[in-house]
C-alpha cells in the first residue's frame, strides 16, 4: 500500500509538470486558487475566452482530451495518465469548465455513434476548445425522469423538424453545438420512442434564455426549439434507440473520477480556527470540534475513496462502485457547513455584502447556492436509488408507466 507513482507514471507526471510550468497563464493563478465553489469570474478577462486560449494551447501540444484517440484531437492516454494530468494542471483546470460537458459527455457519444466524417470534422475542434458543446437532455416535464421528455422530432424528407423546450442547459448561451435527445414516436412506451441528434446551436429556430436561479446567479439556460431543421446525417444511433445512446453519455459522466468535489471543509476549518468568540477561539469549543471532526472524516473519506478508484485505474482495472457516493456526500456537506458558519456569526450571519460580511460573505454565497448542488446532475434521492439498485442490487421501483404508450401517460397530478 503506497501513494507512489509507477516509473511510467512518474515520467508522465514530470513531463506534464514541466509543460504546465512553462505554459500556464500565471496571471490568473491567484484568482483561480481563491475560487472554491460556484461560478468563477475573472477580473482581468472573460472566463470563456481565457479558457479557450488555454484549451487551444493544450490541444496544440497534445494535452487536451487526453484519453481520446489522437485522430480526434486527443492523446490516447490511459485513464490514470488523465488523472495525473488533472493533478498537474491544478488550478488551471478550473479554466476547462466550459469544455467539460463536451469532453466528458458529448464527444464520447459522437465518437460512439457518429459517422466518420463528422467525427473528424467536429471532435478535434471540440478538443481544442474552438467549438463548445452543450447537452440538451433535461426538460420541464423530465428532470429526474429524463425519459419523460416531450420535445418532438418529426421526419421531413432528409431532415427532422424539432419543436419543444429544454431546461437546465449549462453553457447553451456560448455553445456552438448541442447534443439533443428528442421524442420521435409518442405511440410507444417512453423509453422506446426517443432519438438522439447533434445540432448547430446557431440553427434557425433555436432560442436560448438564461435562467435566473434562486441565488440570483445565472448558470443555466432554457432552450426553445421552433421548427428547427436537423439533417438526418446528424442522427446518433438508430431511430427509437435514443435512450440507449443517452446511457453511453451518462456512463461517461460517471467514469470521470479526477474532478475534485468541493465540500467546504477547508473553508470552515480555516474560519473556525480564526473566529474569536466570547469564550475564545471557535475551534476550542467542544461542540464546534465535534462538527468539524465529522466533516473532516467525511472529506478525508471522499479523498481516499477517490484514491481507491485511482488505484484500480493504475492497475488498468475498472474502478468499483465506491465513487458513486461523492456528490451525495459533498452536496449535503456544503449546505450544512455554510449554515453552521452563519450560525457562528450570529445576527451578522445575515449580511452578504462582501465588504461587511464575515469571510467576505463566502458562506452566505455557499448557502444560497448549495440547494442546486443537491439537485444538479442527479438529486440526492436519485443518487440513493442508483446506489441501492446498481451497487446493492435491490429491485427497481415499480414503474407504472413502463408499458404504457407515452401519449397515454397522465401529465397532471390533480
Amino acid at each position, binding site marked *: *500500500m*503506497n*501513494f*507512489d*507513482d509507477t516509473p511510467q*507514471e512518474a515520467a508522465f507526471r514530470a513531463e506534464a509538470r514541466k509543460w504546465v510550468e512553462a505554459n500556464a497563464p500565471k496571471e490568473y493563478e491567484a484568482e483561480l486558487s481563491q475560487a472554491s465553489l460556484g461560478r468563477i469570474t475573472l477580473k482581468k478577462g472573460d472566463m470563456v475566452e481565457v479558457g479557450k486560449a488555454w484549451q487551444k494551447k493544450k490541444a496544440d501540444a497534445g494535452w487536451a482530451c487526453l484519453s481520446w484517440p489522437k485522430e480526434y484531437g486527443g492523446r490516447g492516454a490511459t485513464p*490514470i495518465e488523465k488523472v495525473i494530468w488533472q493533478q498537474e494542471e491544478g488550478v488551471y483546470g478550473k479554466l476547462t469548465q466550459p469544455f467539460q460537458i463536451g469532453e466528458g459527455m458529448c464527444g464520447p457519444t459522437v465518437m460512439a455513434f457518429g459517422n466518420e466524417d463528422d467525427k473528424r470534422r467536429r471532435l478535434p475542434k471540440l478538443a481544442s476548445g474552438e467549438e463548445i458543446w452543450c447537452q440538451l437532455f433535461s426538460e420541464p416535464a423530465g428532470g429526474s425522469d429524463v425519459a419523460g421528455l416531450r420535445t418532438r422530432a418529426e421526419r421531413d424528407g432528409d431532415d427532422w423538424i424539432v419543436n419543444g423546450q429544454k431546461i437546465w442547459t449549462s453553457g447553451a448561451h456560448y455553445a456552438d453545438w448541442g447534443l439533443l435527445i428528442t421524442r420521435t414516436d409518442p405511440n410507444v412506451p417512453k423509453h422506446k420512442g426517443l432519438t438522439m441528434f447533434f445540432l448547430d446551436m446557431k440553427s434557425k429556430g433555436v432560442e436560448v434564455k438564461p435562467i435566473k436561479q434562486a441565488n440570483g446567479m445565472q448558470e443555466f439556460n432554457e432552450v426553445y426549439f421552433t421548427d428547427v431543421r436537423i439533417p438526418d446525417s446528424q442522427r446518433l444511433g438508430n431511430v427509437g434507440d435514443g435512450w440507449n445512446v443517452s446511457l453511453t453519455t451518462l456512463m461517461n459522466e460517471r467514469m470521470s473520477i479526477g474532478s475534485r468535489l468541493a465540500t467546504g471543509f477547508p473553508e470552515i*476549518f480555516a474560519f473556525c*480556527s480564526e473566529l474569536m468568540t466570547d469564550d475564545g477561539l471557535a*475551534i476550542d469549543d*467542544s461542540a464546534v*470540534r*465535534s462538527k*468539524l*471532526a*465529522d466533516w*473532516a*472524516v*467525511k472529506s*478525508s*473519506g*471522499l*479523498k*481516499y*475513496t477517490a*484514491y*481507491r478508484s*485511482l*488505484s*484500480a485505474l*493504475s*492497475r488498468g482495472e475498472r474502478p468499483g462502485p*465506491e465513487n458513486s*457516493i461523492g456528490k*451525495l*456526500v459533498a452536496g449535503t456537506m456544503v449546505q450544512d457547513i455554510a449554515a453552521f458558519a452563519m450560525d457562528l456569526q450570529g445576527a451578522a450571519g445575515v449580511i452578504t455584502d462582501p465588504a461587511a460580511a464575515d469571510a467576505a460573505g463566502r458562506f452566505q454565497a455557499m448557502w444560497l447556492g448549495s440547494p442546486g448542488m443537491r439537485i444538479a446532475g442527479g438529486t440526492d*434521492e436519485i*443518487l*440513493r*436509488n442508483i*446506489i*441501492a*439498485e446498481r*451497487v*446493492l*442490487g*435491490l*429491485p*427497481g*421501483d*415499480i414503474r407504472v408507466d413502463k408499458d404504457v404508450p407515452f401519449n397515454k401517460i397522465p401529465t397532471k397530478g390533480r
Partner: protein
Amino acid sequence: MNFEFSDDQKQLRDQARRFLAEKCPPKTVRAVLEGKEAYDKALWKGLAEMGFLGVAIPEEFGGTGAGHLELCVIAEEMGRALAPVPFSSTVYLAAEALMLAGSDAQKQKWLPKIASGEAIGTLALFEGTGNPSAKAVKLTAANGVLNGVKKPVADGAIADFAIVAARTGTSGRETDIALYLVDLKGGGVEAKTLTNLDPSRNQAELTFKDCKAEPLGAASEGWSILSRVLDRAAVLLAFEQVGGADRALEMGRDYALDRIAFGRPIGSFQAVKHILADMYVAATLARSNCYYGAWALSTNAGELPEAAATARISATQAFQHCAKQNIQVHGGMGFTWEFDCHLYYRRSNALALSLGSLSYWEDQLIERMRKKNAA
C-alpha cells in the same frame, strides 16, 4: 498509486473469512453472549494455529512476522464475525505495547505465548467514567507495588497479564504516569466480571492490592507510550468496526430482498432503499479512511495520529449507523433475541466506547489537525 491491499493480503482475507465462517458462526457468538463460557476457547486455539494471533509479531518472538497490513485484514474479518475472543485486548493493546516498549526479556516471555494462544493480555487504563486522560489515572505505583482499582478492563477477568497505567508522582504532568506489566495470576489482583452491553466480550473490574509489578518502558514515558499504543489500536479496531458495518449492511440488504410486504420485496420501496444506500455511504467512507490508517500504521508515518483518529471516528460512525439501521430494515423481527441484528447492535456500541469514545477522538482529531496546520 497503489492504495489497495495486495493479492496475497486479499488471499489472507479469504482464508480468514472461510475459517471464521466455519469456526465462528452466530451460534458461537451466542454461546458466549448467553454466558455458557467466558470466551470461545476452541476458536482462540484455532486462531493461534492459523497464525492469526501472531501475524504482526516478529518471527524471533514466535509470530509469523507478516506485518500490520495483514493484521488489519484479520481485524476486519474478526469484526465481521463478531468473534467472541479477547483478540483486540491481547493483540492490538498488549502485544503492541510490548513491541513498542517492552524489554527484550519481557518480549521473550510474553510475545511467543500471545502468538501461540497460551497467554491473554489486556490494557488496564480506565478508572470509571471518562475518556483516556493522564489526570484520571489514580492507581498508584511505588517501589514496584500497585494499589488501586481499574474499570472497565476489557477481557480483564480472563486475561493472564495486563499492562497497567499507574501514577508515580503528583507534578500534574503526563510524566507522572508510568506503565507496568502485571502477571494477573501472580496474586495481589482481584478480578470481578461486570455485566455489560455486549456480553459476547468480557468486561471486568480489577482491584490491585499491594500487587507486585515490573515497569514497562521508561517511567516518565508511560503516557507517551500509551498514546502511541492507543493510536495503533484505534486503526486496528477501526478495521473490526468496518467489518461489522459491512456485515450489518449485507444482513439488511439480504432481508430487504427476501421480505415481501404489500405484495413486493421491501427493498423495492424507496424508503428502505435510501436507508440501505446511506448505510453503504457510511461504510464506504469508513473503509477508505481505514485504508489511510492502515497505510500510516504499516509505514509508521508521521500522519499516524491524524490518520488513526480519522479512521476511528469514521468507523465508529459507520458501525453504529449500520447496526442501528439494520434493525430498522428488519422491522419487528430485528428486535427479537432470535435474530442476530442485536449482536451487531451491541458490538457496535461496545467497540465505540472502548479506547475512548467518539467525542474523545473527535477532540483528538481537531487538536492534531490544528498542530499540523500550526507547524
